[in-house]
């Protein structure tokens, strides 16, 4: 104890090592943010200054949302030493059922644009997702069929199912309220609300640091130096405020703004109406916070990690391993439904090809974000950053005019290299 305390005191803010030790910042996370910065700056220079613009970053945030939501679930799936190859096909199938629900079934009951349509369709989709996940999870956990095979079957079966719902017909448009989940001008909350959320997030970060410190002190555990707490608070709040500042400088298209101002009897202010945070981004952030809570603060999360570390030990300790695994797949199904809602709402249509290759992006996001394929290790935040990395690569390449086959080659290479780097990193630590 005394020795820990002296080590803490010795940690000086002036050396890199001392700084990292005192703030307890994960070097792995730092490395990932560094890689993201390199990708962003690289594309910015290579694309002649079009990447790091409010418009592109805002689009990037919206495009990442669906993959990010699903990646949070994939983390838990991979942590328990499983895999889910069926998420892309599930997304197609669930998106289709939600589309048919709101565009064809519900209107026959209560007409178009009923205020309950979006929520009923969404709840139905989530229900379907959880049910599919339960089926996968049951076969995997209780019948003992490997997840690779079950979800490979799912990859084929649910894509077939998506076609079957409407015999291949595309369903459009979505319910007006439902479409807001996809973002766009209406599906963004504007400058004022974005600032309010940013301030609330800052308050939450500071309160979290403060209460964490109080709690550790009440048990007499070693504390971080005060300056380190300050730096963490500053970095956290700074990142939140900077992101919102960028989103708030991306104005609505001027024609849309003028029309809206006219209809509402006002004038377009200087600089136009700001987009602010998009609803899908808010959904993804909320999922990220919720899933982090689940993974780190609840028994369920503890069991998920323990099972990944040593399934026999978890079983011997009295954990109901099969049931936990089944729940992980149910959660994955529910999150795929949210991803499907975002993606169908953004497209304002449900097609039977929707979500193709998403399983690869989702798995890549989780793995790039530090989830170990050997199980037992991974973070939700890492996977969400991984989703942004994947999306940055893709939209950067689109911006530079690379064609799809070349994009696929690059993404494939990046995935392999990322896992190789991760393997080396773990090898060095072990």
């Amino acid at each position: 104890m005394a020795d820990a305390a002296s080590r803490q005191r010795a940690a000086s803010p002036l050396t890199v090592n001392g700084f990292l030790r005192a703030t307890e910042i994960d070097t792995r996370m730092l490395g990932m943010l560094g890689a993201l910065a390199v990708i962003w700056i690289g594309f910015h220079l290579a694309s002649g200054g079009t990447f790091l613009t409010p418009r592109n970053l805002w689009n990037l945030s919206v495009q990442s949302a669906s993959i990010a939501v699903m990646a949070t679930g994939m983390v838990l799936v991979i942590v328990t030493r499983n895999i889910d190859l069926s998420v892309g096909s599930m997304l197609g199938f669930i998106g289709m059922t939600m589309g048919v629900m709101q565009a064809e079934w519900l209107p026959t009951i209560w007409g178009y644009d009923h205020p309950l349509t979006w929520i009923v369709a969404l709840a139905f989709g989530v229900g379907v997702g959880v049910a599919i996940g339960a089926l996968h999870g049951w076969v995997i956990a209780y019948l003992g069929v490997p997840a690779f095979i079950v979800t490979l079957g799912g990859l084929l079966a649910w894509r077939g199912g998506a076609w079957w719902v409407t015999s291949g017909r595309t369903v459009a448009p979505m319910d007006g309220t439902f479409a807001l989940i996809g973002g766009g001008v209406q599906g963004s909350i504007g400058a004022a609300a974005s600032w309010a959320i940013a301030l609330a997030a800052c308050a939450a970060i500071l309160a979290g640091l403060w209460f964490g410190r109080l709690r550790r002190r009440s048990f007499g555990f070693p504390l971080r130096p005060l300056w380190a707490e300050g730096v963490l608070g500053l970095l956290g709040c700074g990142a939140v405020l900077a992101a919102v500042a960028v989103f708030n400088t991306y104005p609505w298209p001027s024609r849309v703004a003028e029309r809206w101002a006219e209809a509402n009897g006002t004038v377009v202010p200087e600089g136009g109406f700001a987009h602010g945070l998009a609803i899908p981004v808010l959904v993804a952030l909320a999922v990220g916070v919720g899933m982090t809570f689940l993974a780190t603060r609840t028994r369920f999360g503890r069991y998920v990690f323990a099972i990944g570390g040593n399934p026999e030990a978890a079983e011997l300790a009295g954990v109901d391993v099969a049931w936990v695994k089944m729940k992980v797949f149910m959660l994955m199904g529910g999150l795929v439904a949210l991803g499907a809602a975002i993606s169908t709402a953004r497209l304002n249509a449900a097609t039977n090809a929707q979500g193709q290759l998403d399983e690869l992006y989702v798995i890549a996001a989780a793995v790039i974000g530090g989830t170990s394929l050997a199980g037992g290790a991974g973070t939700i935040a890492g996977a969400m950053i991984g989703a942004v990395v994947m999306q940055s690569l893709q939209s950067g390449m689109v911006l530079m005019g690379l064609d799809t086959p070349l994009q696929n080659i690059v993404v494939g290479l990046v995935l392999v290299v990322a896992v190789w780097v991760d393997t080396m990193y773990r090898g060095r630590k072990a």
Partner: protein
Amino acid sequence: MTDANATPLVEMRDISIAFGGVKAVDGVSVDLRAGEVVALLGHNGAGKSTLIKILSGAYPRDSGEILVNGQPAEIENPRDAKKYGIETIYQSLALADNVDAAANLFLGRELTTRWGTLDDAAMEAACREVMGRLNPNFTRFKEPVKALSGGQRQSVAIARAIHFNARILIMDEPTAALGPQETAQVAELTLQLKQEGIGIFLISHDIHDVFDLADRVAVMKNGKLVGSGRVGDMTKDEVLGMIILGKCPPGATPGPGALAA
């Protein structure tokens, strides 16, 4: 010291289990009274670990009966065994390598706050306390247990078994990886738990330890019980004869695995 006529805390009757064609445990009966240490002996692969894993719910038995306090006990999985107050230190330690000592200590029985969330601080505090008793030099509370030494990992496994007020404690080679000081600490702890009226099954290859700690021994060979008896009624050489040759001495009660005299 213990009343031979009282109902045994645990009675395992005619237990058998086979893995494929291998009869790992074959018609073994042992019992254990409160405040008693019963040593299970036998060469490698004799079936000791398998027998106690049946008691701890890790393996389903093929046949036989388990009674706790004279009542038939239904032990289908480790959760059931814990409900009967059976705690186990496994030979393999059975630790989740990727989480820290406190998380392992409380695995399956986490402390939670008022809101149902994990109370990591309280668990760490309890872990510091129990580890302080077992292994006072232990300070690496924040690290995943894979970063610990073999002996430190063993201390964590022992801490887990003694922290939850076991009534029946199973120790499968609990000191195999420990240094002399920690081994002495575990021996002292064993005697202390025995004083508290806990029944202990001790598996060990160290015949001296066994004679120091145990009240009775039961010897297995090739899955069968050679015999059992009080430590005072046998010499160390006789016990070694049981282990190696399967020869049951006059001081012990022969089992189905004893050499025909």
